[in-house]
């Protein structure tokens, strides 16, 4: 009926709806919607009554799995819908408790022990499938499903803005907007903000350890309150402490507290020196406190200045707690109502018309999404891939069970004849499946636990948020239990359904002759193999595409020469370096001394190292491209450098020259532009001599040189338009940018370690209070830029390898069994004069046919499925014919190889033996 509406489903409901595919299609078409609605009702009810999610899902899954199984059996067995008559339901319902009976399980275990090859093979295959699925699910659970460690985390929202300056852009909040919202927004219980920064922790009487550089964060006084976290010692910040005029305080992280104060509870009340300012310690945060993408060791209150808020600098990550009854939409509307007042309260030197032009609009999104948003699709894709492997494994095992069933027909027939009825037969099949699946479940969970621990320790390198806290916990074990039970049922469906067809009397009579009754099983096994090959093709195709994409990514030239360059970061505190002259003096002496270190070819200083988290873009004016009145100038990447930058980094100078020696008293009003920048503004002309300026006013800078493009942001995005300015730009004060710098040193390959040490020593000799930090080589940085692609590829490659092996084993099994079935026929052929090569060819043809069928089905599936990968591929189309073609060929080769063994054994049959024994 068209008059129904289903509100958007949440994650749990989507999973439930997907699982409904366990039901037969007819039932699903009729009742899927009702089932989802009822699921939602039950969920609401369970939440209201305080039933934990785990228990709820357990009952739901148990109902789903048993009922879907029973429904499928019923559709095979139902004579006609009779509410009162005995149906497949009753048989199944009777069989399940019979099967779960402990003595029945023990008997099943004993039977399995008697066929060790079969048991080991089955458990192994299932274990691989279960382990892979469980491991990936642990990650999905830990990263996506687990609630955030704050109180009532689904009431937390992230506040950002969209801007339209040069294209749409997403930004954080500014100090001004944070203060404005705190004052006027009504839809929130509280809005807090966070800004990452690095500080120098100095030595003091209370804290004699040497100076070190720390990552820290500025937070509003209410931030911890908004998140709902309590300190482990002392207190958090109080209202009013986040003003420029307030007394300086600080909160330590658990790590810092143990390191510098050795866990002394009397640390609260002591003082520490941060960036030259003495602060009182008021509290310590517990070790379990985390904030996304940030691990500071120290928090200080944000120095907000209501008289001076800057509306145009978007540096603060803001989190809000929704008031009861507010929704994301109503909160957004509330902020949209308030935001236009910002320039009234915080003029910030921005003309109102320009603010209008920029179309600043507030965006409210769930806090969770802002943390895991960009990985969630990737993780679900990975989960989908390992599920494919699991399905292939189940198909493989079902196939093995069919063979086993064939050889046990007599035994089952006897049992049926002795009166335990169909229920007994079903129970026997089920109990073995349960034992096998239980074994696989336990081993799989153990294997997954190991894999997960390895992944978690790789942690942040993979760029997956929250990965460090992923573990195989209660939820994951529950999942493993569910998956194992599902496997047990899936692999028993075919044998159980077949059990109905056991012609008891015939079986008792013709126990030695199996050729005719083998045919339906052989067909079933062939179908299973085709399915396995098809699924394997999808996985291998996905891996292939990712591999090509990764190779393309690796081929991208970053625009500079990373080998041989090491870097170290440095910050000059404003307190000690008040003027540009003092900063430049330090830099000049530093570079002079570093260049004298043996092994150093060149050295330079910059404020932005490509492919790191550095970032600085500025609205730029171009003299001969004037803006319309109240137009907003375009934003470009701006990098402050000294003259030796291009030489040291190996960036080609295309025309003109670089900066000369920089004199703080007479700053050179010169700039250098990248090729992309020149192409944008002067496509057929020469940029040299033209003038640009950072910001809306101030002096014009003359372009003196043009250099090659560099990827500053990412390798898989185009190289950006960039402008290079000299380190010293303002004669009167050292601007903030030039105090946060990185020193880059190009050294002969073998000398890198000693050069890095030499750099450290030189800095220390010049100014003992300046620690260096962030020491790395540029090669490491370039590698890290493609690390996530590499990790994804690795995981998918492992899954594909598993799929290929399982597919090959499947084909081999079917072929080998086929040879046994056709032993008589082959013997007759050989006796009648067929040559070994002809026999081999006949058998191989069968294998290749199976392979071809699998490939055909697989290609159709792959074309549909690989579309999902679109966002992850770099310059490779999801239907790339080369990759897909190669995958088909690979699988056909596997099919041929897998048939080789059985073909040989077929050719080696001695006809005399077989025909005599018949």
């Amino acid at each position, binding site marked *: *009926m068209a008059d129904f509406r289903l509100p958007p489903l949440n994650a749990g409901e989507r999973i439930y709806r997907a699982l409904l595919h366990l039901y037969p299609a007819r039932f699903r078409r*009729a009742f899927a919607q009702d089932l989802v609605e009822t699921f939602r009702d*039950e969920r609401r009810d369970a939440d209201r009554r305080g039933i934990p999610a785990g228990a709820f899902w357990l009952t*739901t899954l148990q*109902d789903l799995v048993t*009922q879907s199984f029973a429904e499928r059996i019923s559709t095979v067995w139902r004579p006609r819908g*009779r*509410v*009162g008559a005995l149906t497949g339901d009753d048989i199944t319902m009777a069989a399940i408790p019979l099967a779960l009976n402990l003595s029945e399980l023990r008997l099943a275990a004993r039977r399995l022990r008697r066929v060790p090859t079969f048991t080991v093979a089955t458990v192994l295959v299932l274990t691989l499938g279960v382990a892979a699925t469980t491991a990936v699910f642990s990650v999905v659970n830990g990263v996506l499903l687990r609630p955030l460690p704050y109180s009532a985390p689904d009431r937390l929202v992230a506040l950002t803005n969209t801007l339209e300056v040069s294209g749409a852009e997403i930004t954080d909040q500014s100090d001004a907007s944070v203060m404005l919202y705190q004052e006027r927004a009504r839809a929130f219980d509280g809005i807090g903000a966070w800004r990452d920064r690095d500080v120098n922790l100095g030595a003091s009487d209370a804290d004699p350890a040497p100076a070190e550089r720390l990552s820290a964060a500025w937070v509003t006084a209410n931030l911890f309150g908004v998140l709902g976290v309590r300190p482990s010692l002392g207190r958090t910040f109080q209202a009013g402490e986040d003003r420029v005029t307030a007394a300086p305080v600080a909160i330590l992280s658990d790590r810092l507290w143990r390191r510098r104060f050795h866990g002394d509870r009397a640390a609260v009340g002591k003082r520490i020196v941060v960036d030259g300012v003495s602060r009182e310690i008021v509290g310590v945060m517990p070790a379990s406190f985390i904030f996304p993408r940030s691990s500071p060791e120290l928090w200080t209150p944000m120095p907000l200045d209501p008289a001076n808020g800057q509306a145009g600098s978007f540096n603060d990550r803001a989190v809000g707690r929704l008031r009861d009854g507010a929704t994301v939409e109503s909160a957004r509307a509330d902020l949209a109502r308030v935001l236009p007042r910002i320039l009234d309260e915080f003029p910030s030197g921005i003309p109102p018309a320009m603010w209008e032009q920029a179309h600043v609009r507030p965006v409210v999104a769930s806090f969770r999404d802002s943390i895991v948003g960009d990985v969630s699709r990737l993780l679900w894709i990975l989960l989908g891939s390992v599920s494919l492997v699991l399905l292939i494994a189940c198909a493989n095992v079902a196939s093995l069970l069919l063979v086993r069933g064939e050889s046990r027909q007599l035994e089952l027939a006897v049992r049926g004849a002795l009166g335990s009825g169909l229920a007994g037969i079903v129970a026997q099949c089920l109990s073995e499946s349960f034992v096998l699946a239980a074994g696989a479940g336990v081993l799989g969970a153990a294997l997954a636990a190991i894999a997960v621990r390895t992944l978690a320790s790789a942690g942040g390198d993979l760029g997956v948020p929250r990965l460090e806290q992923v573990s195989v916990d209660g939820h994951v074990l529950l999942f493993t239990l569910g998956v194992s039970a599902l496997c047990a049922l899936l692999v028993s469906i075919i044998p159980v359904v077949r059990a109905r067809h056991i012609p008891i009397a015939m079986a008792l009579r013709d126990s030695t002759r199996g050729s005719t009754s083998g045919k339906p099983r052989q067909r079933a096994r062939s179908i299973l193999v085709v399915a396995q090959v098809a699924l394997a093709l999808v996985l291998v195709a996905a891996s292939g595409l990712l591999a090509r994409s990764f190779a393309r990514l690796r081929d991208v030239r970053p625009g500079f020469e990373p080998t041989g360059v090491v870097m170290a970061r440095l910050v000059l505190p404003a307190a000690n370096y008040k003027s540009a002259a003092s900063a430049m003096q330090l830099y000049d002496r530093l570079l002079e001394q570093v260049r004298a270190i043996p092994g150093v070819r060149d050295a330079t200083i910059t404020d932005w190292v490509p492919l790191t988290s550095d970032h600085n873009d500025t609205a730029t004016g171009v003299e001969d491209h004037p803006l319309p009145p109240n137009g907003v100038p375009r934003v470009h990447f701006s990098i402050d450098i000294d003259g030796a930058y291009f030489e040291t980094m190996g960036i080609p100078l295309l025309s003109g020259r670089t900066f000369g020696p920089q004199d703080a008293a007479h700053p050179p009003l010169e700039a250098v532009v990248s090729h992309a920048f020149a192409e944008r503004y002067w496509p057929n002309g020469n940029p040299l001599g033209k003038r640009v300026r950072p910001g809306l006013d101030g002096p014009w800078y003359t372009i003196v040189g043009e250099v090659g493009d560099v990827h500053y942001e990412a390798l898989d995005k185009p190289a950006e338009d960039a402008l290079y300015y000299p380190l010293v730009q303002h004669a009167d004060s050292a601007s903030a940018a030039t105090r946060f710098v990185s020193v880059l040193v190009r050294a002969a390959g073998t000398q890198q370690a000693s050069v890095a040490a030499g750099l450290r020593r030189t800095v220390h000799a010049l100014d003992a209070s300046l620690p260096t930090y962030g020491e790395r080589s540029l090669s490491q940085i370039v590698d890290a830029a493609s690390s996530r692609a590499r990790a994804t590829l690795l995981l998918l490659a492992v899954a594909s390898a598993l799929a290929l092996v399982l597919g090959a084993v499947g084909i081999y099994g079917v072929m080998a069994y086929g040879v046994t079935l056709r032993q008589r026929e082959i013997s007759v052929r050989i006796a009648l004069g067929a040559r070994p090569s002809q026999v081999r060819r006949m058998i191989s043809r069968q294998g290749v046919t199976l392979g071809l069928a699998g490939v055909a089905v697989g290609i159709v599936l792959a074309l549909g499925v690989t579309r999902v990968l679109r966002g992850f591929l770099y310059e490779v189309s999801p239907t790339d014919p080369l990759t897909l073609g190669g995958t088909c060929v690979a699988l056909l080769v596997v099919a041929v190889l897998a048939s080789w063994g059985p073909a040989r054994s077929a050719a080696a049959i001695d006809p005399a033996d077989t025909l005599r024994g018949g």
Partner: protein
Amino acid sequence: MPDLPTPDDFLPLKPDAFYVLLVLLHGERHGYAIMREAAERSGGNVELQAGALYRLLARLLDDGLVVESQRRPAADADDERRRYYRVTALGRRVIAAEAERMASLAAAARAALRGSPAVA
């Protein structure tokens, strides 16, 4: 022409089916409401999970004891429109027949107990 089913074809009714029909005798219900009421009325003896309920409804629908009614907004949900079910005339006759059967069983049992030697 195929024989039309008589109520006796459906006896004895399993407890699940009995309670579902009983609930529907009190008026149209949607799936979740049937689950809750059946549990209530049977004092917890009939606890249907979602899958079991809809499979039972499928049988009842196929056999003509229950029929879908027009979708309407659920009284207790926002604006979702749920599928409502109601009992048919045949369904009523079946439950009446079952009630009678149970009544006669009960009567026979009571008579037998009264006439038998003293129950300890």
